[in-house]
């Protein structure tokens, strides 16, 4: 079953300058999809459309059988959550506890259940001991984990990570990626928006965006191998693949090295 359906979606801030142009995309429940694209490819606009912060100028978006419109957008947001890029600008509460509670307060969750959920999801992202801390005493990675807990506590079926790791240090990034894999295993539909190939490796499917158009949708492995598409959209190849290319170009043929490099490119 498709949990997200985008039918011929276009969006433009100014007329005749479409940021997104005729996007058709279906995402299955429990799938992990990466939306890959260079700066200005329209990938962040796509995420804003999905969460209903922007309204498509053409086409329709269906999330969990709800067609997005001005009336239904609040209902649809109960099914889809988003973690933004800047950890500071999405921290609403005065403390970690308040921030996780923010979404629950909006959903009018009764207080008893709220306390339970805060506890559960703070443990899940390993922030339980920081519940009373204020945001300026936390690192970027910790703030991002709080943001994830805030979305998890709302128990949405879909989580979008909009370049959520791009402002973090390697350790913070690895932790967030671990949570993504874990959540995906638990059945949450995950959409990561990124230009980092290492994040893309983990997903099931990759959508490559260029100038507002989808130029390729395929299994992660085949997209990562597809040099032509990646180069066309200004994306960098994974390092092992670069080496592999070099070996081929120089006619150094060693089956063992090749298979090792391919193997390497699919691990973190």
């Amino acid at each position: 079953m498709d949990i997200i359906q985008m039918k011929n979606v276009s969006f433009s801030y100014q007329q005749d300058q479409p940021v997104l142009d005729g996007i058709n995309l279906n995402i299955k429940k429990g799938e992990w999809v990466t939306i890959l694209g260079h700066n200005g490819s329209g990938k962040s606009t796509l995420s804003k459309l999905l969460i209903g912060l922007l309204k498509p100028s053409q086409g329709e978006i269906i999330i969990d059988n709800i067609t997005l419109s001005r009336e239904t957008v609040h209902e649809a947001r109960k099914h889809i959550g988003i973690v933004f890029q800047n950890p500071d600008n999405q921290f609403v509460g005065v403390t970690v506890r308040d921030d996780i509670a923010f979404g629950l307060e909006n959903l009018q969750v009764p207080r008893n259940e709220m306390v339970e959920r805060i506890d559960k999801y703070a443990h899940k992202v390993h922030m339980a001991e920081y519940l009373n801390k204020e945001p300026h005493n936390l690192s970027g990675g910790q703030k991002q984990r709080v943001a994830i807990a805030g979305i998890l506590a709302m128990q949405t079926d879909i989580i979008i990570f909009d370049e959520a790791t791009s402002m973090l240090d390697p350790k913070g990034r690895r932790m967030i990626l671990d949570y993504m894999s874990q959540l995906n295993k638990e059945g949450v539909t995950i959409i990561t928006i990124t230009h980092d190939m290492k994040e893309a490796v983990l997903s099931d499917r990759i959508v490559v965006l260029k100038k507002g158009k989808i130029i390729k949708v395929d299994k992660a492995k085949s997209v990562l191998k597809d040099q032509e598409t990646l180069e066309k959209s200004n994306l960098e190849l994974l390092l092992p693949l670069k080496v592999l290319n070099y070996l081929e170009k120089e006619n150094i043929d060693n089956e063992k090295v090749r298979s090792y490099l391919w193997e390497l490119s699919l691990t973190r």
Partner: protein
Amino acid sequence: MKNIVIGRYIPGNSFLYKMDPRTKIISLFVLMVAVFMIPRDAFEMMFIGIGLIVLLLLIGKISIKRVYLGLRPLMFLLIFTFVFQILFNRQGPELQSWDLNYSFLNIIAAAVLVLFWIFTKKYVRTKILYFAFMLVGVIIILNQLSLGNVFSTGQLVIHEEALLIGFFIMMRLIIIVTLSTVLTLSTKPTDLNLGLEAVMKPLKFLRINTEEIAMIISISLRYIPTLLDEANKIMLAQASRGVDFAEGKLKDKVMQIISLLVPMFIISFKRSDELANAMEARCFIPGATRTRLHQLFWNRLDTVALVVSLIILIGSITVRVVV
């Protein structure tokens, strides 16, 4: 810069910390009215008031030093009102009077003393005492010396009423400031915000959305350290390009402040845009009903505190009406 304390909350453990913020705010209001109700001639009432405040500080385990720190910015105002009363209030019997001789040399001597005070006051720790010394010194010079040609004489007269009212007003200010200091010392800013929201609820009838005001205050509280941090970064960035925020002429300083303010302004707008998106994405609908994580609980302690403050109010009203 990062760990700046907003409000002056000092963690502690006494009945003041266990009280509901609503009670504290209402009691503060009731007691303030009570203090203003004390008639001007009921001097002993003021002393009872001071006594009660000291009692409150002792039972509430609030350090006197903290309260003094809260009062210090007001010292100037306190002394100013006192001096103002002494100089200009001419009611009641005369207590003491000094003849003042104005001559050029006398005035110059007094001016020298004032100048000396201005330049040395930063090295003296007890500034208020030093200020009093200066004043007394000026009066002694004008009173005792009669250097050169005295072209005019004057009189400094202290009336009883001036002394009493000056003292009275000072006491009143001290009590009120101490009470509000106790409130801010013993209540977290977030709790204070919650309490204010609850107390302001009747304003809903005037179509003022108190929940939104509370949300605005809470977001401001959350972003003050972040923005201070940002300002610090910008100042460092500007300093690395040669801007000197500490020195320079006034005109240069204004330009430097602008070089700080413009980026701060833009950054705040960008931040608030992203924050609004994040809030909306998490199902925030302005004006919609929300459940609350923080709830206020009314204890027996709160009832007792409120009753005590009401009794004090009634007491001071009675004194005003009866006496």
